[in-house]
């Protein structure tokens, strides 16, 4: 009886400890983001208040309205940055997906000499730190006159995304049984039809998540963009955010609002793909 009670008590304590630990971890993860959202809705006076105001007295969307009505807070053209970000991220994602699909399919379905060194080589191009790559790119782009253009950044982002897209898509095509495409070919499909009508639809969710991953990489990229862009012609949101910090009087509320605007697309997209992302990366890497 006693042993039973002791065991039950021990289990109860362990369970409570688990819940507390989980709660603390989640709080640590969520709090910074929630604080940013809250700050974007509060008047600047409250943010700057000393002693701090913990419970917001009034909430409003003023910061967002100001940001999107013409030249926003502190003269920062958020709309242009937003437009550039969308154009550059979407275009580079589409191209990276096309290139990555071809490459990923080659790795998943064919045997050829030098397969793993080539794969490793692709991955190594990804290890080059953005800022280190930006030095020669800056020089080359300046010569070609494509600094501060959409084209320049799109090109750079395609290259940035291709290795990882190949890794992911390779993993997804491996998950599609080879027999299916072979059966289709026996039934009279060409290789191309077998790919397009059998394998592609099955791998589509995975490919979509590879696309979203590429989109997020471009959307969030800073090191290259900060050097290869100059003006509203091509500045993206991450670089735009730096405009705020460069000033001496920081408009915290405006920055928080811009941060929220940046995070929402990323949030929605990641939410959609989370499952596929992990399975794609692990299947490619674990099963070799």
């Amino acid at each position, binding site marked *: 009886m006693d042993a039973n009670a002791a065991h039950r008590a021990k289990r109860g304590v362990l369970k409570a400890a*688990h819940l507390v630990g989980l709660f603390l*971890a989640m709080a640590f*993860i*969520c709090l*910074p*983001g929630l*604080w*940013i959202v809250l700050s974007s809705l509060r008047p600047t006076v409250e*943010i700057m208040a*000393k*002693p701090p105001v*913990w419970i917001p007295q009034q909430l409003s969307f003023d910061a967002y309205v100001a940001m999107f009505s013409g030249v926003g807070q502190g003269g920062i053209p958020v709309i242009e940055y937003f437009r550039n970000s969308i154009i550059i991220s979407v275009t580079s994602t589409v191209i990276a997906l*096309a*290139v*990555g699909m*071809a490459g990923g*399919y*080659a790795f998943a*379905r064919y*045997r*050829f000499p030098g397969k793993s060194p080539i794969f490793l080589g692709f991955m190594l*191009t*990804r*290890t*080059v*730190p*953005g*800022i*280190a*790559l930006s*030095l*020669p*790119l*800056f*020089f*080359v782009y300046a010569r070609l006159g494509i600094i501060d253009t959409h084209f320049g950044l799109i*090109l750079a982002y395609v*290259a940035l995304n*291709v290795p*990882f897209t190949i890794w992911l898509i390779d993993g997804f095509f491996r998950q599609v049984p*080879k027999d299916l495409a*072979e059966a289709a070919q026996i039934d009279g499909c060409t290789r191309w039809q077998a790919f397009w009508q059998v394998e592609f639809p099955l791998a589509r969710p995975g490919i979509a998540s590879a696309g979203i991953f590429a989109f997020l990489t471009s*959307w*969030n*990229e800073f*090191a290259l963009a900060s050097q290869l862009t100059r003006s509203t012609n091509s500045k993206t949101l991450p670089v735009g*955010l*730096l405009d705020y*910090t460069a000033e001496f009087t920081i408009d*915290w509320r405006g*920055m*928080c609002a811009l*941060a929220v605007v940046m*995070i929402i697309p990323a949030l929605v997209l990641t939410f959609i793909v*989370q499952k596929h992302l*992990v399975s794609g*990366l*692990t299947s490619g*890497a*674990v099963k070799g």
Partner: protein
Amino acid sequence: MDPAGAIAQDSGYEQEKAPAKRSRRWKVPVPFLLLLPAFVVLAAVVVVPLALSLYSSFTPFRLTRPDTFWTFIGFRNYVRLLSDWEFWVTFGRTVLLLTVALNLEMVLGLGLALLVEKATRGQRLLRTIMMFPMMFSPVLVGFQFKFLFNDNIGLINNALQALGLTDSAIPWLIDGTLAFIAILVAEIWSSTAVFAIFILAGLMAMPKEPVEAAKVDGCTPWQTFRYVTWPFIMPFAYIAMTIRSLDIARAYDIVKIMTDGGPAKRTEILWTLIARTGYADARMGVANAMAYIAILLSIVFTAMFFRQLAKARAQVGAEW
């Protein structure tokens, strides 16, 4: 050997191996055709520029004086860097930051994954929350923690003062050591999720029987974890490590925003130093030499984890 692969190889080698098949149309091997776009893009944007920067690391090239691009000075940039104390301090700081950050991320990620895996209800929600920091652009992470660690209006100082833990404001980001810690916190906050996600994937893919067998055989929970669970999830942890090491340089974004290498270069890391030397000082030649050392560092980190991954995979492979 699979039929598809066989076909591919035939078409690749038919000219040399099978002259009898000459009558068939000459074809470029399919996989190379498929890989061609990737090769072209990577060559144009990564390989050729890097070759160029390798060359210019042997010149005293300055952006303001284009003619210096053609002056060849051999290894002088590298020699100067090797004897530059400040550079080595920065290099050491970068390695220290990466080592501490990666190890803590690994441990915390493991803990987080175990916590979430144990949860009986709402696991889907917990997993989504866990991924939350991954979506933040590093720039955003930097800004967010710059805001939180602000000595005057930051949440952390406000909370500490409200709780009576400190009377005066703690100068996070103004004191060198504290700024380093603040950067470390930001870095860990943003990247622990990567480890947690992959380790969790490993935990969920793991068969339950070995754990139960270990329990029946009288293993303590620690023994079960150490000798049964851990070997299983190790490859997943190394995948996370490899992926993380592929873009360790994102710390640049965080540091650039939070302190920009300051105060008085006390938080300067390799990448901020490269940016400063290359763009602010316009000394491209030296910056490229530094960049090559930074690239080497990245490759060492990646290769290290990639080898571990291969080893762990081979070890577990028999049991999968």
